[in-house]
């Protein structure tokens, strides 16, 4: 999977590194700002009220 992505990134190696980092950042942002905030209330970790 990662090898396949690496091979399909265009440009020479230094450019690929930058592209890979950008991809990682994009995935992190997606997780932190979209996926986790959506999933969190559905998971039983942090309810603080009674009743």
């Amino acid at each position: 999977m990662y090898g396949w992505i690496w091979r399909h990134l265009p440009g020479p190696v230094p450019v690929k590194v930058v592209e890979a980092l950008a991809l990682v950042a994009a995935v992190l942002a997606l997780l932190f700002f979209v996926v986790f905030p959506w999933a969190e209330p559905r998971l039983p970790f942090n309810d603080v009220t009674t009743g």
Partner: protein
Amino acid sequence: MQGDEAPTELIEAVGGRRQRAAGGGGDRTQKVVFTVGEVLITLGLVVLLFVVYEVYVTDWMSAGKQADATANLDERWSQEPLPDPGNQRTEKVRPVDGEGFAKLYIPAFGTDFVFTVLEGTTETTLEAGPGHYNDTALPGEPGNFAVAGHRVGKGAPFNDLDLLRSCDAIVIETQTDWYIYRVMPMEGEAQDWEQGRGASEQCTDVKPLGEPYEDLVGQQIVLPHQSEVIAPVPNHPDRVAPPERQAALITLTTCHPRFSAKQRLIVHGVFTKQYPKDPANPGAQPPELTEG
């Protein structure tokens, strides 16, 4: 190409195989196993990232919301003039849902421990700070001023709630007054309160309350559905205290144990003192704030 060979070599190293895949990637099984491995490792990382999110990232997000709530509250307080102390302060304004209306200080957690308390206990409100249960008493009122707060992440206002000892001060500031609550005697301390913990200076105004509060203690751990802990007579929603025996209580709730929502940690305090704010010197603070 370099990229074609790297995965194959890695698999060989792991499996201890010498056989080289013909033509770089001919072995289907190897490829499938490798990809499944990659996916599993990725999912593991996502779970770890979720922990990071829960414990740290929500803290940063909540810090901003808490700062906004505090700024709004300060602005409102500075715009509306203090009511004339000569007037009867009978009109109590109900706080607006999702907006800050008081500040909570716990000097035992340090002099810088202050949170703006917002009205309501919805998910969104609690992200900004501790939330006041709708329809429970307001600060200083007879009844039970009940507040929920997060213990992990989201600013974690109630992270150390389990460390509160009996008689520790819980101070509530409103626009007009300072209200000093103190944690009730713990279970086991109530027996010989006068000779034991009750003898210390902090505990002057704290003692086990009689009927109908006879089983009320400073800390309890309950199941999530036990909403009776925030009743006017905690644990006894069916009881009504006669007016002359009505106590003004504070109840703080958070999750327990940490990182879990299996139970709730509950702290009860009793109202001991009130300092009206002096319009001539609105910045003055009660001595309890520095007793840490």
